[in-house]
């Protein structure tokens, strides 16, 4: 199912933090993981991912380290304590948001049926 970009816009950082919180990942892996875990609903563009990763790193939510992978340097990201706190806040925010949206959607449907 195609999802409107506008809907996912505010949640990209949350998705990235969530997958990295589970294990250290590098950029390509992050995209693959998000795709896999969302059953291919979320297909993140690389051009979107890397600016987000770099911003999160600059803000101190992620740290990075380099690993040699078949003769190539590969940059892995790891979530920091600050990132975990941020993730928790974002999750709460998201839960509140989706709960409210669900309520509204449900309410509208009920109201429509009553008429």
């Amino acid at each position, binding site marked *: 199912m195609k999802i409107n970009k506008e809907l996912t816009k505010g949640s990209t950082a949350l998705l990235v933090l969530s997958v990295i919180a589970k294990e250290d990942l590098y950029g390509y892996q992050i995209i693959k993981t998000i795709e896999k875990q969302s059953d291919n609903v979320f297909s993140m563009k*690389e051009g979107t991912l*890397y600016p987000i990763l770099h911003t999160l790193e600059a803000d101190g939510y992620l740290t990075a380290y380099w690993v040699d992978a078949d003769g*190539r340097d590969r940059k892995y990201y790891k979530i920091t304590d600050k990132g975990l706190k941020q993730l928790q806040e974002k999750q709460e925010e998201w839960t509140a948001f989706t709960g409210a949206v669900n309520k509204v959607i449900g309410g509208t449907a009920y109201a429509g049926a009553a008429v």
Partner: protein
Amino acid sequence: MQAQQFEDFLDTVCSGIFSDRVRRRTRKELLDHLTCKAEDAVAEGRTESDAVAAALQCFGETNEVRAQITRAHRKDNLKTLGKGFGRFLLSLLATAFGLLIQLLIIVFGFGDDANIVLGALLFVVLTVLTWYAARNEEILLPLCLIPAALVQCVYVFYEEPSFLIALPELLSGHLIRFLKDFAFGVIYSTPVAKGMTYAFILLFVVVNLLIAVSSFRLRTKRSKTNRLDKWTLRMSCILLTITVSASALCFCAVFVPGQHFLRYVSHYIIVPAADEAEVQDVLAFYKDKAKVRRDFTVNEAYPTEETGFYVYYHHDLDSAFIDASAVHGGESYESDDTILIDDSHYLSSQDLFYRAYKSVVILAPEKTTGYYVAIPVIDDWVRTDKAKTIALPLKKDATIRGNMYQHDYEIILTQSVDSEESKP
């Protein structure tokens, strides 16, 4: 897989990152991603060129990616610019401090040799400092070295002659002499050496400015914002350098004695001459001495039997003060504005040094014949091209009024002598 398309793409998308280190790392990271993507595509059975195109396509529109990456590194960029500018300021401060020390050395006069040695040492120290300050990736080194070079300029302003005087002799070619002097630390002691030094510093500054401008590699081909940032920094550095340099020069102009562009006539050498041929001899003599200033030690008297007036000189132009005395039999007087050279009046070197920019009045005996040649001395440099001849048979009193700022003076006749009375 190292496709050229990847390199071109990475060149563009990373061009907004100022820091070399961050840019290298970002390139490496993105290249790894592109390679993984392309390898997967090849594994799926696509051709290599298709795989490369697909990998690039995944990133989206190049300029948009570049803008987003630049935005993500905005903080880094500002930090990089700030660090570069900070280093630049540090080197300027270090240089200004060195300049101040040198000026103090000169003002308190620890001697020429000490100045040269200390100057050379300071130059080395400051160069190392500025190198250290600017050695990292954001190279502002050439600009930093300009103020360091200015430290050496102090000698030029301290010593004589002015560039305009030195230039003709410089152009006449005395390179070997200059190099020899420079090698032995006897810099700035001759017009040629000073002229060469001016030229050298001028060349140094111009070359450094050119290097400075070209050393800022313009990586931001498409982003007007980033280009503006870099140019703002460049212009700030250049303007700051010019401001500090100008301030240093003004400081030298005001506080360093004998600076060439505010030089004044410190005194006049007054030499009697019997006739016009002797006037020319006198001029030739001093002109010759001016060229070889270091060897210029004169201890001669010029008695003028013809005039009954004689001036005694003892000049050692290598010394800090000029010892000049004038002796004449007769009465003497002086006022606040004038120094009179007349009978039995002695002018000490101190008098001449501090007061000679006022007027000097020559009172010639009534029965004198012949000439006096007045040669202005600007600081310790004889200017025979500005010499004036006073014909005593026609005049009784003549006032030489020096203009301390324009290197010029005028001879004012205060009383004409009746030609009949002046004859013996």
